C-alpha cells in the first residue's frame, strides 16, 4: 500500500534522512517510536506532502511522488500530492480543528467541498461517525467548547469522513491530559481492529505493544530497528533501541 524508497531530507546544510525505506502492507498497523526529534513526525508528513524532500520516492497505492521542491512544486507533483491526500487521512498532535465551524461543520466541510457529496448524505455520514466516537451530543458545539480528547476524536472523525484507505496519526495523544488519552486510543484501536491501514507516531508504548503489527524505531533520522512489538520490547537487538526504551520505560 505505502512504499518509501531511499528518502533524503535536508534542512539547509543539516541532513535529517539519509535514504530510508519502509513498506506498509494493506491493513497493516505500523507504530513509529523513537526520541523527540528523531524524524517520526517528519516521516509521516513527507508521505502526504506536508513536507518536501530532496531525494527518493514515495508510492501510495500506485501513486508516485518524487522529490519535491519547496519553493515551486511542479503541477505533476501537486496533483500526486492531492491524490495521495484523498487516499490517506491525517490526524495531528494539535488537532487543528477549524475553530469557526461547529463539530458538524468540521466533519462535512471536506466531503461537501472536495468530494462534492450532497449536504444530506454528508450530514448523515457525519452523524454516524459522531455516534461511533460517542459525541452525538456535541454536533452543534464549537471546538473551543470541547475537551482536548473530544477535539481529537472529532479530528479523527473528520479524517474518516473522507473515507480514506489509510490513516496517519502524528502523536495523536501527546497534547492531551492523561485522563483523556484513553478515549482517543480506544477510538484508534477500534479503527485498527476494523483493518484500517495505519501509521502512527506515538510515545504510548502500551498501545504500541497492544495494537501494532510492526514497530519501527527511529533515531536521528534513521530507522535503527524494525520488528514485531514483542520482539522490539522484550529483546531489542540494537543498542540505540535499548537506550531509548530504557529511558522511556523507566519513567
Amino acid at each position, binding site marked *: 500500500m505505502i512504499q518509501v524508497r531511499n528518502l533524503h531530507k535536508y534542512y539547509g546544510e543539516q541532513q535529517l534522512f539519509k535514504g530510508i525505506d519502509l513498506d506498509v502492507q494493506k491493513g497493516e498497523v505500523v507504530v513509529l517510536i523513537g526520541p523527540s526529534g528523531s524524524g517520526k513526525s517528519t516521516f509521516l508528513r513527507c508521505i*502526504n*506532502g*506536508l513536507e518536501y524532500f530532496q531525494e527518493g520516492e514515495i508510492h501510495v497505492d500506485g501513486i508516485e511522488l518524487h522529490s519535491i521542491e519547496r519553493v*515551486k512544486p511542479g503541477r505533476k507533483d501537486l496533483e500526486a500530492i*492531492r491524490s495521495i*491526500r*484523498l487516499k490517506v*487521512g*491525517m490526524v*495531528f498532535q*494539535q488537532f*487543528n*480543528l*477549524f*475553530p*469557526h465551524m*461547529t463539530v458538524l461543520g468540521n466533519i462535512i*466541510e*471536506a466531503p461537501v*467541498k*472536495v*468530494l462534492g457529496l450532497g449536504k444530506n448524505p454528508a450530514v448523515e455520514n457525519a452523524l454516524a461517525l459522531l455516534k461511533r466516537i460517542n459525541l452525538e451530543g456535541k454536533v452543534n*458545539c*464549537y*471546538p*473551543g*467548547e470541547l475537551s482536548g480528547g473530544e477535539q481529537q476524536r472529532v*479530528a479523527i472523525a*473528520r*479524517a474518516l469522513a*473522507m473515507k480514506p484507505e489509510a490513516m496517519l496519526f502524528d502523536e495523536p495523544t501527546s497534547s492531551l491530559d492523561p485522563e483523556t488519552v484513553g478515549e482517543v486510543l480506544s477510538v484508534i484501536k477500534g479503527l485498527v481492529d476494523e483493518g484500517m491501514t495505519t501509521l502512527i507516531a506515538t510515545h504510548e508504548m502500551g498501545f504500541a505493544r497492544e495494537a501494532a503489527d510492526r514497530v519501527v524505531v527511529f533515531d536521528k533520522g534513521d530507522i535503527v530497528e524494525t520488528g514485531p512489538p514483542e520482539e522490539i520490547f522484550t529483546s531489542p537487538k540494537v543498542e540505540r533501541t535499548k537506550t531509548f526504551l530504557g529511558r522511556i520505560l523507566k519513567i
Partner: protein
Amino acid sequence: MKNSFRIFSLLIGLVLFLSWTVSSQPRETSIDKIKKRGYLLWGSDAEGGAPYVFPSPEDPSRLIGFEVDLAEAVAKELGVKARQSQNAWDSLIPALKRGDFDIVLNGVEITPQRNEEVLFSVPYYIYTEQLVVRKEETAIRDINDLKGKKAGTLSGAVAQDILEGLGGVDVRIYSGQVEPYEDLAFGRLDAVLLDLPIAAYYAKPNPKLKYAGPPAGEGFYGIAIRKEDTGLKKTVDEILGKLLRSGELKKIHEKWGLWNETQEKLFLTVEESAGPVIIEESKKAPLHTFFPMLLKGAGITIFISVVSMALAVTLGLVLTIARLYGRPPFSSTATAYIEIYRGTPLLIQLYILYYGLPNIGISLSPVAAAFLGLGMNYAAYEAEIYRAGIMSVPKGQMEAASSLGMTQPQALRRIILPQALRIATPGITNDFIALFKDSSLVSVIAMVELTKTYSILAATTLRFFELGLIVAFLYFAMSYPLSLLARRLENKLKGPGR
C-alpha cells in the same frame, strides 16, 4: 498638506482665540509698539499667489507682489521696516484678532461680515470680478449666461457670493487660484469668476482661455486692523491718502499691471473717508440656517467614505492574496503597490490622479478621482491588515485543510480567511474611521464635503467656534455608530465557541 495644515491651524486658532478673549487687556498703543519694535508685522498668505504676495520666481526665498510693495511703502511712512508674517488666508482675520500681527494686507475684501470683526482702512484697490471662459466658448458672454453651467471660484471670495446669488449655477469651490483655471482648460468647468488681479495673472497668459465680457461687480480691498487699534487705523488711512495723492500708490499698481480707470474712484473714497465702506447693514444669520449646507456636506462625506472603503477592502484582499500566495510577477507587483501607496502622501496621489492624469489624456470626474484616490490608498493599508490576520492563523489550519484534500484557494476561502477577517476586523474598523476623516482631503479636487463646507462657511462668516463644534459633532455622530456596528460585527463573527 495645505489642508491638514489649515485644519491644524484652525484648531490652534480656536484655542488661542478662546484664550485671547479671556486675557485681552489694555496696553500701549500699537503705533508705539511698532515703532519700539522697529518693524510693521503684516499678515498675508504667500500661497495665495501672484500678483498679491508670492515667492519671487528668481529667488523663491524672497516675497514679491504689489502688496509687498504697498506694505513697505506704509512701513516707510511709519518710519519702520516691514516684515511679512505667513498665515493661511482663510484664518488671517482670526490670527489678526489674537495679535499675531499688526495688520492684514492680502486682498481682503471689505464685507459687512468682516466689518463686524475688524476695522478696515480706506481701500487701497478696487477689484472687479472677471469672468474667464475657454477660447472656443461662444455661449457664455457674461455672468448672466451661466445658468446650468459649471463655474469655478475661490473659497471665501466675493465672487463665490456673486455666483451663488445668481441661482441655477453649478458652483465649484477651490482653495487655490491655479486649479480653477486648470480645470477650465481641461473642460471640467465652463467658466471661472475671480478677482481681476488673479485673472490677469493666471488666466490671461493661458492661450486656451479668454476674458468673457468686461469686469463686473466692484469691491474694495482694505487693510484689516484690530477693532481696538483706532489710532493705527487713523494713521494708516492718512498714509494711504498720502500715497494716493503723491501718485506712489498708482506707481505700485502700474508696476504690477493693475492700474485702470476704476482705480480713479479711490480718490473719492479718500475724500469722504469718514469710515470704512459699508455696503449694507450687516446681519448675523442664525445658526440653523447653516444646517442644510452642513448636512449636505456630511452626506457627501458618508458617500465618499463608504464607496472608497468598499473599494479599499476588496482591492486590499486581492493585493494581500497576490502578495502571500501569488507567483513572482504578481506577488512582487502587489508588494510594490503596497509600499508605494503607503510610502507617498495621499494628497500627492489625489493631485496626480486629478490634475496629473489629464496630461496623458485621462480626465476623471471629481467623484471618480475621490473614490479611486482614497480607495487605492487605503487598499494598501487594508492589505497589510489582512496579511497580519492571515499570518496569525496557526499554520496547522492550512495543513489540516490540505490534508483533507482541499485546494489552496478552497482552504483560503473556507478556512483561513474567515479566521483572518475576524482578527482583522478591529483594524479595518479603525481604518474606516480614519478614512472618514481623511475624506476631507478630497476638497483639493473640488469636492465640497463636510470639512470643506465648514472652512467655506467659517471663512465667510468668521464663526469658527460654533460651526467648528457643530462639524466636530457631525463627524462624531457619523463615526461612533460605525464603531458600535463594528463591535457588534466582531461579536457575531466570534461565534459562541471562542
